């Protein structure tokens, strides 16, 4: 193996790819997509403002209205000295806003609904909280979300009113709502995992997993395409006159892989920047929030490791399969077996995200084609012994070596095959004679 030749091929493959419009567009679109993932929920929230249900309340005795008004304010700030807003468990961006009805005349209120000034109106009847009844007047039956929110609001407001009626002091009422103090003690010592952080890292692992999957598939296919392109443009004959097929294959795999790593790196980096930016803006933007600092280093390192291992494993196979055909349109059919394996790996990975400790996930995580993704999930989310991790990596390395050696043999005979795709028997026979 001549490393100068390998580097020359690598350099060409890398530069040709990162300079191509496709690569630049793909990278930018990916970054925009990531930014959208972080900011779109906030944007949707903003748009939702227009769809807030405005409900006018007719409550002559002011039994529940003050509480309702307080609850449905966009950001309920406790007024000093007054009763702090009881916790309702409702989200901050409430889709219901209560206001005092401008009139008590049902006909006038009906007109307001028809005009669209208000979405609906609520009539509170009775002079005591214990005997109050509510009537909701609207054009349409309220949707699931609205009606559950409505009853939650009314529930809280009515309880508040009843407590008052029963002569419970504001302080006593407050203590009713204070959450129970629950102390969690880890069994057998140690530190408890932060549930929140775990959900966050599961989300992150999911994003990284998709990235792993997409990049391996995309760039693996590019390796196959690259080989076929050299065959169909007949530049192959020139190349293998000058250098050995193994140098050509290795340089191509590494060059394209480096381009993939560049793209994934740009995506990850811009993802982190977006997250940081989001965290600075705070909750105002809503959406998925991940504390960047909480991303464990082992997760990122194992991502990088399995990214490289997984890519090499698959790319060698893609190169070998690509060398068997001579037209670009045949690439998909010849690489179909790898696509099927890939889909299987993806489905198992999605399952593993929710149950990384399942026995079959553990077993499959030692099967080389599955290892990169499953072992990554297990390292990031489960409890993986060092020996398991090392064994998985060693197996993938061994398999990569074997497959690359095998792929190089196929490649060696495949690169000069033109015309009909050879059968398995022909390939074996050719490999023996060359």
């Amino acid at each position, binding site marked *: 193996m001549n490393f100068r030749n390998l580097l*020359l091929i690598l350099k060409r493959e890398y530069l040709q790819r990162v300079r191509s419009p496709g690569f630049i567009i793909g990278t930018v679109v990916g970054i925009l997509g990531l930014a959208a993932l972080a900011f779109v929920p906030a944007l949707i929230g903003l748009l939702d403002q227009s769809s807030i249900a405005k409900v006018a309340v007719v409550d002559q005795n002011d039994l529940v209205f003050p509480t309702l008004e307080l609850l449905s304010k966009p950001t309920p700030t406790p007024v000093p000295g007054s009763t702090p807003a009881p916790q309702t468990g409702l989200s901050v961006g409430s889709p219901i806003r209560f206001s005092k009805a401008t009139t008590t005349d049902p006909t006038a209120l009906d007109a307001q609904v028809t005009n669209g000034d208000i979405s609906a109106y609520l009539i509170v009847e009775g002079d005591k909280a214990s005997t109050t009844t509510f009537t909701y007047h609207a054009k349409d039956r309220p949707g699931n979300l609205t009606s559950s929110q409505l009853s939650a609001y009314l529930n809280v407001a009515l309880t508040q009113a009843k407590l008052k009626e029963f002569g419970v002091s504001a302080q006593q009422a407050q203590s009713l709502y204070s959450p129970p103090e629950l102390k969690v003690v880890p069994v057998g010592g140690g530190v408890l995992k932060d549930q929140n952080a775990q959900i966050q890292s599961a989300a992150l692992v999911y994003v990284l997993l998709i990235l792993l999957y997409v990049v391996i598939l995309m760039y693996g296919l590019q390796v196959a395409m690259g080989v076929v392109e050299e065959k169909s*443009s007949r530049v192959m*004959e020139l190349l*293998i006159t*000058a250098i050995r097929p193994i140098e050509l294959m290795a340089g191509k795999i590494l060059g394209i892989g480096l381009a993939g790593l560049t793209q994934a790196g740009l995506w990850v980096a811009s993802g982190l920047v977006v997250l940081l930016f989001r965290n600075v803006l705070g909750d105002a933007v809503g959406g998925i929030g991940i504390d960047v600092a909480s991303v464990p280093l082992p997760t990122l390192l194992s991502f990088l490791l399995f990214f490289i291992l997984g890519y090499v494993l698959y790319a060698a196979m893609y190169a070998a399969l690509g060398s068997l055909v001579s037209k670009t349109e045949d690439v998909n059919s010849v690489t179909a077996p790898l696509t099927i394996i890939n889909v299987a790996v993806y489905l198992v990975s999605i399952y593993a995200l929710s149950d990384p400790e399942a026995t079959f996930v553990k077993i499959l995580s030692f099967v080389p084609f599955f290892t990169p993704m499953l072992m990554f999930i297990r390292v990031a989310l489960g409890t993986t012994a060092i020996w398991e991790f090392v064994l998985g990596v060693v197996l993938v390395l061994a398999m990569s070596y074997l497959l690359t050696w095998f792929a190089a043999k196929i490649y060696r005979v495949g690169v*000069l095959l033109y015309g009909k795709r050879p059968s398995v028997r022909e390939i074996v026979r050719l490999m023996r004679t*060359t």
Partner: protein
Amino acid sequence: MNATNNSGLVLQGVRKAFRNVVAVDDLTFTVPRGSMFGLLGANGAGKTTTLRMVLNILSPDAGTILWNGVPATHVPRSTFGYLPEERGLYLKMKVGEELVFLSSLYGLSTAEATKRAHEWLERLSLGDAWNRKVEELSKGNQQKVQVLAAILHEPDFMLMDEPFSGLDPINTEVLRDTLIQRQQAGHTIVFSSHRLEQVEELCDYVAIIHKGRLLTTGLISDLKRGSGRQMVEMDFAAANGQPANMDAFVAALKPLNLPIHERRADSLRLEMQPGVKTDDILALALSSGPGQVRRFELEEPSLQEIFIDAVQKSDPAAVHELVAEGSLPGGKVLTEG
């Protein structure tokens, strides 16, 4: 292993079969160092397979291939320059970048490759093509780039598969001069062709192969002299404004039983036979009066005649096939009965 020497390329009993088809069989010939060597044969004769085996793209089933005494598989790759029959370049790359890349694969430094690529592009009037994509060039210019990819690293030994096909007359001239220049600089050149007049003009040596087997090889001048054959070539001018009356002349020649190799409106090429005197032919030409005799010459056979003769001796049926399928452009074999 043999010791290094100056013997050039030596093929000894080389054989290569694909599945059940024998592409090359028991091929033995020598390309002397520093020669311009023509590898002749019709389509499918085994020329490309032979070149590929020399370059170690294919490995022979049997036989040895030595370059200056060293097995071709062990010769440094930069020794060879190759122009494949199926032209192949990265179409999306820029001309300059592509030439630098390809010649650096043969060991040239980037700086040296850049310098030479600029010089050569200039010489082949492609000086403005450096930053253009290969696919934007005309076919002829792409071919020039392909030739440069084969010679930029100044290989000792160039193998060119049909280098002249697809070139217009001007570029043919440019390539011809380039090849002659390389040879004068001491490099060895083998090229395959079925353009026999080009081979005859350029090459010192030839090997003629047919259906994978060697028919004959050697210095072209030796082959011509050694054939023992002689041709009579005659040109006529129109007499009294009348076109040459070739029919009458051919009819008058019939008793002499001379094979006619080429017949045009104003010229005739015959093969001499034992017992026939040139004076007899000249007398007939004057008496049967096809026109005023402008040229009457006794010459050695052309390379094409040697080629056809060689094929005919080993495989009589093939000659007509070759002519019919157009593998022998200009090969009009008119054997008068």
